[in-house]
């Protein structure tokens, strides 16, 4: 029997990733998916819907919280409050619905029941009725949305309000549970999440499966190495900017030739109780992905073994300058990722009387020769 339900792709970085994630979740509950300009599948039975909602609820607990160590050394589960998924400590939209309500929404959306209504979705243009009260578009549904829930925004009628159908609301909400590389720079109170940009959804699914295999789940990042400190205790070593994150992702993935276009969502403010309004989107286009192949051929782990080990020291006081250290790491990673030697070399400029140190000769020489020498001979 041919698949009956089809959800077309949006050709948008957020919703296409969300659609791929929904397809992945459906595959986990044994639904056969046809990946072709969207996803197509047979309608779900009650058991499959229950398992799907169960998986989503498990992911909410797993992905949207982290293990926090309190001052007295005890550990507790804390919410990733910086994500625009909560308001006043409670999940909003689809994520905040009771289990039965979630099941009702999924049953309706993933069945072949005809979806009609008087309203038109601002995102996909489909007709709908707001039977589930999840139609108001906030950053929970689309992180770049300008309109917020009035109660969350505080300023009324300053910005236009958008409304979406339950399908878009569901997709937008669950994308926060997806396996996208993220990192958090606590000093700058900034979080970075990367999304691959691939038009062909089947290709996107293939790449994201590889990414999923490379991820761990840590407090500050899902691409990190664990190490034991001098006084014992387990610490995370992780990248603190988008380019370093991308480079360390490539290290973990081992295959880098898949996509040269990424969307980076930058969220400011980590410890806000209210959902953040400060989300920024940056497009990362890698101009020459073959150059990365060459870098990886001479340095197996350019971020972990080379860039991450560098630090920036004051020439006068000999103290380490954390801000410049972070900035220089970003410049080196950006230079390597974008095949831009000028940017890379900026990390080596002496600024504010501080100098880059901790660079290993065994790594720097081959890298420069590979990058700048005609025959690339070492």
């Amino acid at each position, binding site marked *: 029997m041919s698949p009956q339900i089809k959800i077309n792709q949006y050709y948008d970085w957020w919703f296409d990733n969300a659609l791929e994630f929904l397809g992945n979740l459906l595959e986990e509950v044994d639904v056969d998916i046809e990946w072709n300009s969207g996803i197509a599948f047979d309608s779900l039975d009650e058991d499959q819907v229950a398992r799907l909602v169960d998986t989503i609820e498990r992911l909410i607990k797993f992905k949207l919280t982290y293990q926090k160590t309190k001052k007295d050394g005890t550990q507790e589960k804390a919410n990733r409050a910086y994500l625009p998924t909560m308001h006043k400590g409670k999940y909003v939209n689809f994520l905040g619905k009771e289990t039965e309500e979630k099941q009702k929404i999924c049953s309706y959306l993933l069945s072949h029941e005809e979806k009609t209504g008087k309203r038109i979705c601002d995102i996909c243009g489909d007709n709908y009725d707001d039977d589930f009260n999840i139609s108001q578009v906030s950053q929970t549904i689309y992180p770049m949305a300008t309109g917020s829930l009035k109660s969350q925004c505080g300023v009324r009628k300053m910005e236009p309000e958008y409304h979406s159908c339950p399908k878009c609301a569901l997709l937008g909400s669950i994308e926060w549970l997806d396996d996208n590389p993220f990192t958090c720079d606590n000093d700058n109170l900034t979080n970075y999440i990367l999304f691959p940009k691939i038009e062909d959804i089947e290709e996107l699914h293939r790449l994201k499966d590889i990414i999923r295999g490379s991820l761990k789940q840590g407090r500050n990042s899902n691409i990190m190495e664990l190490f034991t400190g001098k006084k014992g205790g387990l610490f995370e070593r992780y990248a603190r900017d988008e380019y370093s994150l991308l480079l360390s992702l490539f290290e973990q993935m081992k295959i880098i030739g898949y996509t040269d276009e990424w969307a980076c969502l930058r969220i400011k403010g980590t410890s806000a109780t209210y959902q953040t309004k400060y989300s920024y989107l940056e497009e990362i286009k890698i101009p020459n992905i073959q150059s990365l192949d060459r870098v990886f051929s001479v340095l197996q782990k350019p971020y972990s073994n080379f860039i991450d080990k560098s630090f920036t*020291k004051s*020439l006068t006081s000999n103290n380490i300058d954390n801000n410049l250290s972070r900035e220089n790491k970003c410049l080196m990673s950006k230079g390597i990722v974008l*095949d831009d*030697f*000028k940017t*890379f*070399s900026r990390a*080596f*400029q*002496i600024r504010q009387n501080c*100098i*880059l*140190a*901790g*660079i290993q*000769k065994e790594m*720097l*020489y081959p890298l*420069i*020769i590979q990058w*700048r*020498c*005609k*025959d690339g*001979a070492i």
Partner: protein
Amino acid sequence: MVQFETEEMEIMRKSGHVIGTIADNYISDLYQLDRTRSPEELIKQLKNISLRAISIGKKLDESIYTEPLAKLMDLINKYKNNSDEIKDIVIVYSTFYLGAIRYKK
């Protein structure tokens, strides 16, 4: 982006070593090298650094070998339109050597 010959890369590396050694005592020389905006300015600053190397050599027992700097000036003349790229590579090496010297201490 210009791809250089192996020997040319070697000249830049050795020049970086000389400049890094000098910058350990005269950091402003490295600052000024970085600030140069034309091949002429770059060569002028390299000449200053060469003179500095000679004067340091007179004070110390061990002289600083300045031949790489002379070769570097020839290289800059050869790649006049891309002297910026040479400067970038030399700065990377110079800072690396200076960092190595300082960090060793």
